[in-house]
């Protein structure tokens, strides 16, 4: 190809929020070119300005608060940033289309799929209703949805998350756009669904020759999809280059740090134990937690539809956990892993089953005794933004469990709280701040300090790092490993991220549709998976290495997967048959 001219050329884009004293620059002097048929990944952590800069191209920034100060974005001989709303509307949804992160909320719930799919075609391409419908069915077929005529008549709530994202892609591609803007298109999806959607986007790109701007924080997705990469940080472009160059010979320290922080599945495959971070780590000891036969069905509550069916969130789940050990519960959404974690803490009542902590049957305890027993077990939640009461100061939040259990008061309480702040890497004068004044990583440290305050033996960590940026995730995981090894804590570590699990767990339990399908020592399960679902999960994990292509996905026959009772195939390694 000779003398390629860029399809889109962004030059010196500067965007700010607020005015005068409150002016805050979100994007500063950003420039990049997008070539025809190319996938350009814009990578960065939260606050890097990657989303803002792309929304600006389509005039989708909140009017009033955001100002585009300088810059041009030439596309088709026009400057996108200078166009009127009217002209932009003609481009949006026709020449430049977009797919969003949340397939659950980016489709209008009250309109049929067909209507939403054909709207833009009728509007922009001047197609008749019938032509548009034909095109719509074609597109649904292309994105791999079965029975398109039926899908056209369905409403968004009748489809799963993956199917909705397919519909979004069908909508975005139907007008045969020059540019597809994909803002974290797979972040909200399960890993097996993510793999399918990425395959689909690659396939459509070659078929239609569309250029893609892919905005993401996930280096695995970048490695798999991108031709070229722009790395952004705090509104500036840090580095730009072909994908292999970025991954193999990154120039900037930030890019190197970013890549180093990405957990890679297989990095710890040779080690039997999680990485040792303290000199003499506490080793797994006696059995701390014993569960068996845990079952829970969520029933639909209603005046008339009482006790009729429901969804089984957990069926016959059982496992043991030793003091100082980490058991990872992995699975996709709806697998029942969070339900299991909550059941162990008695945050929800089981229909059947046994939960014993130190030999005490938790289910037989009365209300007051349950609260006492909670001293032994604490929880760290996924969302550090929502799991801290916004109206209590950080100091009070961390001290609260000690106050509840009457462990300390007055001066001693103050001192112990301060020690906890220092223990998790916060400063003592952070105690008077409120949760909104902390960053995501700091808030998760607060949650950890809060959980540690009562010297628990067991901590249930529900996706403790999945809301964090990778560099912050690495720090929080490091802290959790260090605390466990020096204090001998047992973790029930709930996660969907296989690479993270490999880094922290002694043992792994894979859950699917409310059942454990495989459980065993980490090396056994991750290196030598015996259940087809475990293999599929592992195969779907995107590899943060552009030279290694993920193999084709094994096709799972959902109906035929063995879900039956667990049988031992090797010492401690059990698989559903």
């Amino acid at each position, binding site marked *: 190809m000779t003398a390629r001219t860029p399809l889109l050329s962004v030059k010196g884009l500067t965007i700010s929020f607020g005015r005068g004293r409150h002016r805050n620059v979100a994007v500063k002097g950003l420039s990049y070119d997008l070539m025809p048929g190319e996938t350009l990944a814009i990578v960065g952590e939260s606050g890097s300005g990657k989303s803002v800069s792309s929304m600006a191209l389509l005039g*989708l920034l909140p009017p009033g608060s955001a100002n585009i100060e300088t810059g041009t974005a030439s596309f088709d001989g026009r400057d996108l940033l200078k166009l009127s709303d009217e002209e932009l509307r003609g481009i949006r949804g026709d020449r430049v289309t977009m797919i969003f992160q949340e397939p659950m909320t980016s489709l209008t719930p009250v309109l049929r799929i067909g209507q939403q799919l054909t709207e833009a075609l009728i509007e922009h391409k001047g197609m008749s209703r019938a032509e548009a419908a034909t095109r719509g069915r074609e597109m649904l077929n292309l994105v791999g949805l079965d029975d398109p005529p039926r899908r056209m008549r369905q409403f968004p709530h009748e489809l799963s998350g993956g199917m909705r994202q397919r519909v979004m892609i069908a909508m975005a591609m139907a007008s045969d756009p020059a540019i597809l803007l994909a803002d*974290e298109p797979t972040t909200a999806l399960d890993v097996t669904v993510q793999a399918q959607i990425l395959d689909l986007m690659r396939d459509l790109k070659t078929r239609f020759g569309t250029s893609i701007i892919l905005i993401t924080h996930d280096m695995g997705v970048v490695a798999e999809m991108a031709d070229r990469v722009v790395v952004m940080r705090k509104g500036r472009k840090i580095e730009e280059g072909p994908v292999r160059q970025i991954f193999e010979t990154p120039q900037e320290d930030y890019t190197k740090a970013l890549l180093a922080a990405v957990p890679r599945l297989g990095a710890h495959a040779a080690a039997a134990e999680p990485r040792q971070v303290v000199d003499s780590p506490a080793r797994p000891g006696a059995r701390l937690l014993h569960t068996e036969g845990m079952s829970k069905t969520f029933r639909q509550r209603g005046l008339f539809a009482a006790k009729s069916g429901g969804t089984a969130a957990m069926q016959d789940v059982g496992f043991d956990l030793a003091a100082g050990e980490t058991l990872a519960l992995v699975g996709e959404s709806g697998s029942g892993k969070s339900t299991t974690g909550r059941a162990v803490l008695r945050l929800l009542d089981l229909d059947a089953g046994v939960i014993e902590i130190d030999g005490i049957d938790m289910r037989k305890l009365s209300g007051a005794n349950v609260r006492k027993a909670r001293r032994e077990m604490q929880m760290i939640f996924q969302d550090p933004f929502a799991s*801290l009461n916004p109206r209590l100061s950080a100091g009070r939040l961390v001290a609260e469990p000690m106050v509840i259990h009457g462990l300390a008061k007055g001066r001693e309480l103050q001192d112990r709280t301060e020690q906890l702040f220092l223990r998790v890497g916060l400063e003592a004068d952070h105690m008077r701040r409120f949760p909104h004044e902390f960053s995501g990583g700091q808030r998760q440290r607060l949650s950890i300090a809060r959980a540690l305050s009562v010297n628990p033996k067991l901590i249930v960590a529900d996706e403790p790092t999945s809301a964090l940026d990778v560099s912050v995730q690495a720090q929080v995981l490091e802290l959790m490993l260090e605390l466990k090894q020096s204090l001998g804590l047992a973790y029930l570590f709930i996660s969907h991220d296989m690479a993270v699990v490999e880094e922290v767990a002694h043992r792994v339990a894979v859950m699917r549709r409310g059942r454990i399908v495989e459980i065993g020592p980490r090396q056994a399960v991750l290196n030598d998976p015996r259940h087809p679902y475990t293999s599929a999960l592992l195969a779907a994990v995107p590899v943060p290495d552009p030279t290694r292509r993920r193999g084709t996905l094994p096709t799972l026959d959902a109906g035929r997967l063995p879900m039956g009772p667990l049988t031992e195939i090797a010492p401690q390694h059990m698989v559903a048959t």
Partner: protein
Amino acid sequence: MIHSSSTADLADDLALASAPQRRSFWRALLGSPSGLIGLAIVAVLIFAALTAPIIAPFDPLRMAAGPRLQPPSLAHPMGTDDFGRDVFSRIIFGARLTLQIGVIAVGISLTCGLLLGLVAGYSSGWTERVLMRLVDVLFSFTEIVIALACLAIFGVGLTNAMIAIGIASIPFYARVTHSVVLVEKGKPYFEAAVAAGAGHIRLIFMHLLPNVVPTLIVIGTLGVSTAILAAAGLSFLGLGAQPPQPEWGFMLSSSRDLISRAPWMMIFPGLAIAITVLGFNLLGDGIREALDPRQTER
């Protein structure tokens, strides 16, 4: 086809970009036009109520302070009524009653409604169902009907009217509290507190209450104007303030027969009520904007 729903990530970017802009509550309140005007009106009202004996030129109850039915003049800026009492002085003293009505009526309904809503929302199950169905039954009557029923039991009078209005609007506050509690109860921080071992009292008063209060401050401020209107209405019907109290609603009703001869007797109390109601409404809006800056962007 392009939906304007911004992604979570954009929200992150925006939050980071605007973090240092977090303004203090008072600054935000004074910065919004409605907050500023509302606060000014309410401040004038409170000032008038506190200093009424000093700033009022006449005793509000003194008859024949001037000639009867005198139109507005320098000596009597709002004229005199049919007993020769100075309307301006009566209006200033009326501010005291009006504020009392607002504070007492809203105080009663807010406290009871808050407790009911908190208990119902927190307890769930049978307690919740019984309490909320009771509230629904009361809610299905118009507030004024309940207030009239209360007055029939307690007897007429301004104090009883305040209590009656307070009782009549309990269901409204209970419902609002209940729904806010349900939302807050679903948030992870509540579950985090349960997991930490917190008991009922702590969960209700340390975790739920502080998160419910901001909404109720807004509703309560708006509610003051409703209560003032309701009291004026009751007084107009002769069930609230009794002669010779300088209550605005009562002043309105006593001017009814003289509307063509002495329109000022009707205009000024009417204006006072309207401006006060407007003031509290604007203040309520201002507080809401100041507490939740996101709502103003719509």
